[in-house]
């Protein structure tokens, strides 16, 4: 009889965003490796307020009903990067919950990676709750790199309290059908929220992004930049709503969604809007969808850059504005490298790894 040997699963999967010095946690089909699931109340990010001029109560509800009782709880350490690598292995539906809590002043960084192994039809639902308070500044990167048969529905619930700040970057390198719903509540004075997204699509991929961001306190700042590069028959749909309640005086809120259509059959739809109940605010929103600039292309080719290379340079340039928002340099470089490999049609796995896991 063969001797049983325990091999931690984390030995079998190497992440392509391997970051030296990071605290690393693995989650297998929603179950954390060497970390207990914790029971915790659901984070409520719903907002409601009176609009006296309209004699009306506005409600922006978020349902807490089907939030799983237990969560993978991440309490980041100040100054250290925490990496949570979620890997899908078996093709059952997984409904997971991740909770990230920062309550003390300082700089925190978390990267959440979602992967699939093999070519199964994975289906994932998850709720990611992020609570930032007490003057904490959290940098959060969500990297999604899954196979083209996978369906992934994420619900990001973000609550930012007084003098605290959250910067979230969602990088969707590859996936089948993705829905990223983001509900962000700025609930205390001078809270800040940066939301950036980059989605790269080809084939029959569909990526939906749905943002609701509520300013429910004065002097808060929010900036959103979502960019997509679409080829093949892919589709993207962006819906964004920024709400400024009567309490949100001196709000600054900006929202932009830009799409680069690389093929004739790709489609992007974009629906940004602003709802403002305060009178002293600076807000703007906008969206674009366009194809590559012929002049730029000719300029590059006239310098001897081949057409295919010129197109990749243009796409990298388009993506750069989002990647530049990733504050940690080592992470920004790794992500830029993965994006470049993705745009070149290479596997988005680390060159040093060679396991071909995602």
């Amino acid at each position, binding site marked *: 009889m063969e001797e049983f040997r325990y091999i931690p699963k984390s030995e079998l999967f190497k992440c392509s965003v391997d970051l030296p010095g990071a605290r690393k946690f693995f989650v297998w089909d929603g179950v954390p490796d060497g970390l207990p699931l914790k029971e915790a109340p659901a984070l409520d990010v719903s907002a409601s307020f009176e609009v006296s001029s309209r004699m009306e109560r506005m409600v922006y509800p978020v349902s807490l009903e089907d939030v799983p009782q237990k969560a993978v709880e991440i309490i980041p350490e100040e100054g250290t990067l925490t990496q949570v690598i979620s890997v899908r292995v078996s093709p059952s539906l997984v409904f997971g919950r991740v909770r990230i809590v920062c309550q003390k002043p300082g700089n925190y960084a978390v990267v959440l990676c979602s992967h699939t192994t093999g070519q199964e039809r994975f289906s994932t639902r998850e709720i990611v709750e992020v609570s930032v308070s007490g003057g904490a500044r959290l940098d959060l990167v969500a990297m999604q790199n899954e196979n083209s048969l996978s369906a992934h529905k994420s619900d990001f619930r973000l609550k930012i309290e007084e003098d605290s700040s959250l910067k979230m970057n969602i990088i969707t390198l590859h996936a089948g059908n993705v829905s990223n719903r983001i509900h962000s509540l700025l609930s205390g004075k001078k809270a800040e929220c940066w939301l950036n997204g980059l989605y790269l699509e080809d084939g029959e991929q569909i990526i939906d992004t749905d943002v609701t961001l509520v300013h429910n306190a004065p002097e808060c700042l929010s900036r959103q930049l979502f960019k997509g590069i679409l080829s093949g028959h892919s589709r993207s749909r962006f819906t964004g709503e920024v709400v400024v309640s009567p309490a949100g005086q001196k709000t600054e809120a900006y929202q932009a969604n830009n799409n680069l259509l690389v093929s004739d059959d790709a489609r992007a739809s974009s629906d940004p809007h602003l709802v403002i109940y305060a009178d002293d605010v600076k807000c703007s929103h906008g969206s674009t969808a366009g194809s590559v600039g012929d*002049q*730029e292309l*000719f*300029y*590059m*080719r*006239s*310098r*001897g*850059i*081949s*057409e295919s*290379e010129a197109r990749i*340079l*243009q796409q*990298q*340039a*388009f*993506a*750069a*504005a989002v990647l530049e928002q990733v504050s940690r340099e080592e992470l920004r470089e790794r992500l830029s490298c993965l994006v470049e490999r993705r745009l070149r049609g290479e596997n988005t796995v680390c060159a040093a790894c060679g396991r071909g896991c995602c």
Partner: protein
Amino acid sequence: MENLLEIKNLHARIGDKEILKGINLTIKPGEVHTIMGRNGSGKSTLSAILAGNSNYTVTQGSITYQGRDLLKMSPEERSWAGIFLGFQYPVEIPGVTNVNFMRTAVNEHRKQKGLPPLSAAEYLKLMREKMAYVEMDPSFSSRGVNVGFSGGEKKRNEVFQMAMLSPLLAILDETDSGLDVDALRIVANGVNRLKTKDNAFVVITHYQRLLDYIVPDVVHVLYKGRIVKTAGKELAAEVEAHGYDEFE
């Protein structure tokens, strides 16, 4: 000596509008040609066609470059074969840094010649050397291509790119327009430093003043899509004094 470029009876149009109506031009290695002409005479069309801009359609005639049919070559193939166009309006490419842009270009040229790519250190050394030709600050290398550059900086960047690629046939499309005297001198010096017995320049301009710095061997006057007069450098002074009316 063998011709570097030979244009025969070239007719071209953009959309329905015929712009070039039978251009004949022969250029040998080591020569500097100037093409002068009014706005709309076809100067920029000619340079765009030489570089391979597909917005223009050649309806008649031929262009032979080093014995090859130039019109069958893609813009990048022309660049690899040694053709360079200094743009009248250099294009801004936000997000692509100057260094990334030029390094990609230089390495594609090397690949075509069967040479390995330059290492980062080798590239930087070459870049600094060539930037000095046009008195360009190395800090420009980390900025987006031409993004936020002044008119003069854009033109210097064109000459810098030319120096990096050492072309055999460089066409400078109104590189002097929008330049003050200092910038003009810097740009012209850059061109003069690159001149050898093997390469040729076509300097397209409205004015004579650039020709105070770059001395042409041959001057052509382009008028309504045809070269109506060809002579030595004295022709430039004549055009400057009398204008283009005498070519009516």
